[in-house]
């Protein structure tokens, strides 16, 4: 007679809070910072559409101490999201083959991060230039 009685061991409920999974949890959570920042920008657009008075209120709210604090927190979250997003990028795209050799994942991450840095800096320069000229 078979003595088979497979035992099913559930995975721990708090797996997401334990290393190495914690890094994944933080990466996904930092997406909330991106969404919040997008919502703040959207609120600015809505205020702009409603008129100069509403946009003035929006600008005053942005200049407050707690708003600066929130923005610092959001900046940290967004930066973390950018770095970890590009770290996972090589895992989510087709293999790049150059001259018969696969491009190492770390190289893909570095190039994508540099590209993001150049684009962000360029955008910042354009915005500052437009601000100075207007």
């Amino acid at each position, binding site marked *: 007679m078979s*003595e*088979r*009685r*497979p*035992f*099913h*061991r*559930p*995975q721990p409920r708090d*797996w*997401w809070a334990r290393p*190495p*999974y914690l890094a*994944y949890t933080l990466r*996904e959570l930092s997406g909330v910072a991106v969404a919040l920042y997008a919502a703040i920008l959207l609120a600015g657009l809505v205020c702009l559409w409603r008129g100069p008075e509403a946009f003035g209120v929006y600008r005053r709210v942005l200049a407050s101490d707690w708003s600066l604090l929130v923005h610092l927190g959001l900046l940290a979250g967004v930066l973390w999201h950018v770095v970890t997003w590009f770290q*996972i990028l*090589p*895992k*989510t*795209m*087709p*293999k790049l*083959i150059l*001259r*018969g*050799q*696969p491009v190492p*994942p770390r190289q893909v991450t570095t190039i994508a991060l540099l590209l993001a840095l150049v684009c962000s800096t360029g955008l910042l320069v354009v915005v500052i230039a437009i601000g100075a000229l207007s």
Partner: protein
Amino acid sequence: MSDVPHPSKSIDLRVLRYRPAFDQEPVFVSYRVAYSDDMSVLQALQSIKDTQDGSLSFRWSCRMAVCGSCGMMINGAPKLACNTFVRDLGPNAVTIEPLQNFPIERDLVVTVGDFVRKIESIYPYIIPKVPKPVEDGAYLQTPAQMAAYESFSDCINCMLCYAACPQFGANPDFIGPGAMAMLQRYNGDSRDGGRQLRLDQIHGEDGVWSCTAVGICSDVCPKQVDPANAVNQNKTNSALDFFLHALRPGERS
């Protein structure tokens, strides 16, 4: 002679044991093992079986990280017992458990039937695009064509990636990283024509879409297969196939 191992140190191994005839549930049993610097965890388990308890059960075969039999949780992480050294684990007691997310048959032996069925489901062999008799010679392939799938062909079916995958832990029907690496090994092969057959197997929640790109499956892989890449590039393929299937000739929605 200097190359003969001299066990000079000892360490406690806490092994999760489950004997279905006696135990209601798995229990930890501690064994003190003498070890030398070149002793693997597999050798430590063999020494327990030889000298302390002959009933301890675990799978092993090649002892050189090729057969994929000796996967187990060592200090909570999925590893091959044959290429994990005891010297790197001390000085505290080392915890050894069967692979996470699989039913335990006995001690460190887990049920592999579901995994084998998943591998079988994705047609793990080349389905030639054009049948070619042997006398017409070999199918030719450029180094670039081979590089497209070669790393995926290194999979040894050790199931460490499944033990590391929390989504497989939550949904045992998820096809999982190992079978997807195998799928990509054939779908990425320039000689193969079975892409559509395999894509039809991986749509939906139990296909690629249970994956949330945790990525630890690739980190624990002992052969650097990068199964997370296989799963995630097939999310794109699956989505494209979903949108394009109506355009294919002879296809009804």
